[in-house]
């Protein structure tokens, strides 16, 4: 093989698309079997080419340097003595490179075919389009019952979510404000059961209870009085109301009054 340096100088130096392109060129030039690359010669020629590029002050793309490193690595691997049979069966260090080169070759060949076809078909000429007015045509709607149903479910779910957001807010208010008459009646009866007299405004103090609670408490008190379980006394108009427990009346009568209060 001749020195590649002289050759390389005559080459259009930056004509190679990449390291594969250059390697491929060297392989073709030396009429080498791509499946049996003499790595020592190829590496040498490749390095000489890079050196030539450097001499000419051409910028060497990093890919070319990576390939140089790869070639040198393969070369050193092949220089290592093989220890035993097993090593011999191991992968040829060139294999990966060869695979890549063969693949590259296929596409390079096809790119030649593309070039030829392009040349052939560039002889075909087309006509510029006429100006054709665009008519907006209303065509059949593309709809789906499945989507209709799905949208219904989505909108309902969204509605539910929105509602539950609203009702959660409402609930929070109601949680604070909801006062059941029955609960208040039970509360008052509970106090009366202890047999003690109490001041209504102390138990249902506006300081500790909401307005609704106080009002409901008052209604509950009236219920309790109606039931005959307590008597009330208000010594001063608009003053404190004192509640005194009363003995329950006959059972039957009780039940009736309780029923009434249920209805109320």
């Amino acid at each position: 093989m001749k020195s590649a340096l002289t050759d390389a100088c005559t080459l259009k130096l930056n004509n190679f698309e990449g390291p594969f392109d250059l390697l491929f060129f060297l392989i073709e030039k030396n009429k080498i079997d791509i499946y049996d690359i003499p790595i020592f010669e190829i590496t040498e020629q490749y390095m000489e080419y890079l050196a030539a590029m450097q001499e000419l002050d051409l910028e060497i793309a990093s890919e070319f340097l990576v390939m140089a490193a790869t070639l040198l690595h393969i070369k050193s691997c092949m220089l290592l003595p093989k220890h035993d049979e097993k090593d011999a069966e191991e992968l040829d260090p060139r294999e990966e490179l060869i695979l890549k080169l063969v693949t590259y070759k296929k596409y390079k060949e096809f790119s030649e075919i593309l070039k030829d076809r392009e040349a052939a078909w560039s002889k075909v000429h087309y006509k510029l389009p006429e100006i054709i007015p665009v008519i907006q045509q209303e065509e059949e709607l593309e709809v789906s019952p499945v989507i209709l149903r799905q949208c219904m479910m989505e909108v309902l779910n969204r509605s539910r979510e929105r509602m539950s957001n609203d009702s959660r807010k409402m609930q929070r208010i109601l949680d604070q404000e909801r006062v059941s008459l029955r609960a208040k009646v039970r509360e008052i009866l509970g106090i009366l059961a202890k047999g003690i007299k109490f001041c209504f405004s102390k138990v249902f103090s506006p300081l500790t209870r909401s307005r609704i609670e106080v009002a409901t408490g008052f209604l509950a008190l009236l219920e309790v009085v109606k039931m005959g379980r307590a008597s009330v006394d208000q010594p001063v108009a608009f003053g404190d109301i004192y509640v005194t427990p009363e003995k329950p009346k006959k059972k039957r009568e009780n039940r009736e009054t309780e029923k009434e209060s249920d209805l109320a």
Partner: protein
Amino acid sequence: MDCETIIEAVLFASGDPVPLEKLAEIIEKDKKTTRGILANMQYKFEHSARGIMLRELDGLWQLCTKPELDIYIAKLGALRKKPGLTQAAYETLAIIAYNQPVTRAYIEQVRGVNSDSVIMTLMERNLIREAGRDDAPGRPKLYETTDEFLRVFGFSSLRELPPLEMNEIPEAVETLPTD
């Protein structure tokens, strides 16, 4: 190479009218011969099942489509736009379909957004129509789906609407506040 073949290709590629002189130069004939060839071509185009014809405009020659084929060419310009429905339209249509007749207020309650323009679109598409007025205060308009709705969705009657499983239907809808 046949002169008619060349002229057809040249006029086709040009698109624009080409002067007789230019054509004569290309086929390497004199003007009179070229004119004869063109006239012959013109006759053949006219009297055969060709879609195009040869037209002379003041010494310029041009290929163009035959005028009677205009209606077919116009179809090229027809945008093959398969309109679908937007999510909003589907939702609104679904609410109407499943609850008809229904007021605009109800639709907006369920969707949670103003639905005026969607209802307009659905009316324009003839998928819904007005169906009298509700007895509620203000006597709001009611909406229902049309036969076109059934046809487009391929239902033979409203009973064919895909069922909504009862457990999937949120109670919220039944207890809607009338805000």
